[in-house]
């Protein structure tokens, strides 16, 4: 976690939200707690439904953003000595909200000790979340929340949200783009939406639109898919037919791959700002292909969701909202992260 100890000029911008270090401290102390606190009994505890935690996400199996999230949850389970089942949708189900809702409903039916889930739609998860609340199953939402500020509402009850406010992250990304790329009013900016069905990407998009508005920029949205090669050809076709694009913003690692692969000799000058971080995005930033990315610390989203559920169960400590981002990473501050990024995405 050297990121925060850096003295380089950009380092100051990394932690815009004070809560990030708070989260780190929480995580660290929890780990210490579980290691020292004689919790060894639970480490060998037999698996049963009441002792199991479920970790549900809409993560597409081939999306490189997600392994750090899953690693975070798995690491937390290992260190806490609890059993966490990480549920995945299949590759074919990528983008299908119904598939994730089915996973969540299955998890609820098992009456587990707790559930961590993403909520990618304002209505689709509602009845499942209400059922969990009625059955007194603790639910922590991470990464994607049904509301722009991450808070639960009447239709979507849950205990806490671990993740970034996607809206404010979007606003921040727009500001970053304006200053990094020296964009003027009327500049041509396109935004690649690789999962148009995902509400958190829509929230980022809304934030980006709002963030650009004061600068007089109206971005164009290109809807692609989780399939990088077809997404790249859609973006490539757009760039061929629309000259004079100044900058591309992506909404996640898949979109970033699509943007980079779409660039040709004619369009290499276009600047790219990204969302999320994986080893590929890291390499793009080091090479200068991508100028910046908005990181939400996916590893922490996985890790802290489980920790919160565990503490709720064992200590009665009510889960709290933990903003894990946004943090802005550029070529000047990412170099030292390389050895962690595959596991933690950090």
């Amino acid at each position, binding site marked *: 976690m050297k990121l925060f100890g850096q003295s380089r000029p950009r380092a100051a911008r990394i932690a815009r939200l004070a809560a990030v270090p708070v989260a780190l401290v929480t995580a660290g102390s929890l780990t210490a707690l579980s290691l020292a606190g004689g919790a060894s009994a639970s480490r060998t505890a037999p698996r049963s439904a009441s002792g199991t935690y479920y970790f549900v996400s809409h993560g597409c199996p081939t999306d490189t953003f997600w392994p750090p999230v899953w690693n975070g949850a798995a690491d937390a389970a290992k260190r806490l000595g609890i059993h966490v089942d990480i*549920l995945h949708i*299949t590759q074919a189900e990528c983008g299908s*909200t119904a*598939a994730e809702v089915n996973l969540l409903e299955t998890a609820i039916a098992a009456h587990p000790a707790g559930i961590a889930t993403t909520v990618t739609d304002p209505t689709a998860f509602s009845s499942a979340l209400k059922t969990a609340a009625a059955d007194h199953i603790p639910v922590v939402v991470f990464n994607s929340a049904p509301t722009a500020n991450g808070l639960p509402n009447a239709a979507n009850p849950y205990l806490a949200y671990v993740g970034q406010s996607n809206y404010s992250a979007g606003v921040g990304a727009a500001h970053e783009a304006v200053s990094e790329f020296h964009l003027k009013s009327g500049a041509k900016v396109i935004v690649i939406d690789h999962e148009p069905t995902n509400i958190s990407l829509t929230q980022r998009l809304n934030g980006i639109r709002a963030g650009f508005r004061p600068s007089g920029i109206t971005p164009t949205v290109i809807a692609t898919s989780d399939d990088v090669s077809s997404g790249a050809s859609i973006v490539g076709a757009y760039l061929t037919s629309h000259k004079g694009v100044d900058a591309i913003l992506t909404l996640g690692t898949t979109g970033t791959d699509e943007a980079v692969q779409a660039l040709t000799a004619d369009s290499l000058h276009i600047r790219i700002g990204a969302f999320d971080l994986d080893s590929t995005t890291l390499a793009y930033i080091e090479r200068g292909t991508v100028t910046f990315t908005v990181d939400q610390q996916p590893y922490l989203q996985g890790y802290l969701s489980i920790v919160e559920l565990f503490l709720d169960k064992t200590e009665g400590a009510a889960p709290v909202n933990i903003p894990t981002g946004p943090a802005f990473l550029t070529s000047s501050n990412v170099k030292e992260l390389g050895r962690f990024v595959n596991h933690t995405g950090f």
Partner: protein
Amino acid sequence: MAPTPAAAATVSSRGDTSPAPPGGSQPVAGGWQLAASSALTRLLRQRELGIALVAIILFVLFSLLSHGTFDSVQNWAAIGSATAELGIVTVGVSLLMVSGEFDLSVGANFAFAALVMALMIHDGYPPLEALGADIGIGIGVGLLNGLVTVMLDIPSFITTLGTFFLWSGVTLLVTGGQTVTILNPPGVLTALGGSVSGQIRAEIFWWLGAGLVIGLLLHRTVTGNWLFAVGGKRFAARETGVPVVRTRVIAFVICGVLAAFAGAVQLGHLDSMSASFGSTYQLEAIAASVVGGCALTGGRGSILGAMIGTVVLQMLDNGLILSGVSPYWYESVVGVIVIAAVALHVRIGRLTRGAEQ
């Protein structure tokens, strides 16, 4: 293959078919063997037998492995609602498969019809009109599939692969890929996919209803008889005066309507719809139908079998999770089950039909 009692009866009665004078009585050779084996044969002849066995084995297995969570009422409510939408699609797909055709466009049809319905409700049209539009699109998509296949005389696999891309594209065009959400669902949506009692949702009853209606249509009406005939041997059907073209087109329309209706039901369940919903259904529906005893070559199959097949797929998805097996296994296991179930159908079929073919 060793002759079964039934096959032995076949052999002993063959060649004894010399005609008696009209009205004369016939000695029935091997009749007692028939009586002894007919109960077993009749049981084995049920196309649902294989899949029912698989379902029972999986049920016992998962109940044991899941520490009592699998066989709870609440879990079966979850399995039921996960089954319902795919199940409605599968009912149509299996009827179409009996008639000897495929529909790869059901997933696209599902999303397209339901998205139009969602947009209409969103824009304030009366919900019943929106449902009518959904069904209308289903009829239209099915009619197009059927007419193109019959008139241009191309395999339905190709026709519907084409219309799959066609409607997927149109859907993205209409919505720009965005999800359409209904924040205040009208009564129609609640009736389609809302809660009936606790976790038990209306969609389960729509699925059972669709299965009952289509099951009766296929197995107990003249149209159903013709569907089997057209799928079993199209030329023979034509020779005996079955309206082959009309029957084939009807099958596509029924399949299209059910796919669109399933979309409406899912909209009722989630109050949300996007172009990617239902995208896995075309292959899952074929898998469920095949697992449930529908022959890929047409002419054989049962709606009940296909319904149990859908439940088996959802049991796998759900049971693997509750047994703590990595869900990554799901697709692999489905693959194995599809092959195993078909192998079982083939064996049972040979056993009951004898080995003479």
